[in-house]
């Protein structure tokens, strides 16, 4: 494949970080009992990361147009 632009490279790295946050959150939440006090905190992190995931197409669109998100 061709070399990525700087914008694409940054988005790639951001997506990798989000993949790690979401994936490990999934694992930790699955390991938590329903009454574990950490569960609600993990769900908050997970929800925020999922919402950041949902923003990625918009970030990519803005980057491709040279706009700042």
């Amino acid at each position, binding site marked *: *494949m*061709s070399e*990525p632009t700087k914008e*694409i490279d940054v*988005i*790639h790295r951001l*997506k*990798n970080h*989000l*993949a*790690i*946050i*979401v*994936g*490990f959150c*999934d*694992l930790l939440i*699955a390991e938590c009992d329903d009454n574990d006090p950490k569960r609600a905190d993990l769900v908050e992190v997970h929800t925020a*990361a*999922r919402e950041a*995931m949902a923003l*990625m197409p918009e970030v990519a669109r803005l980057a491709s147009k040279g706009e700042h998100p």
Partner: protein
Amino acid sequence: MTSVQSPLVLVVDDEAPIRQMERRILEKAGYRVIEAPGGVEGVAILNDGKSLDLLIADLDMPELGGDEMVRQIRAARPDLKVLYVTAHIDRLLDVRKTLWEGEAFLDKPFTAKGLLEAVALLLYGTLSAGKY
């Protein structure tokens, strides 16, 4: 499948936390997992004759990308099922207009459920992802 054992999955990614995360998700679901930190090491494992059921390959790796890695082993392993994991889905589709039968892609970032569904779809033709 190669045996009555649970399916064996090779995870190839240059990002160690991604490999570890995928390993934990897959092992928790009952799969056996081996890892390689890059395409060159992945090819070496595949050429070693190991009986794999599925290859999960990152597309963007510094020395040898997932697409080129698979191209190198395709002749010897025409039936190998491959899940490409990529943060650059557009670039994959630029160079690969169509995927082979037994190939699929998963866009990063993904959830545990998304990973397990993609793996189950390739291996069993079903979306069942267990507890996630």
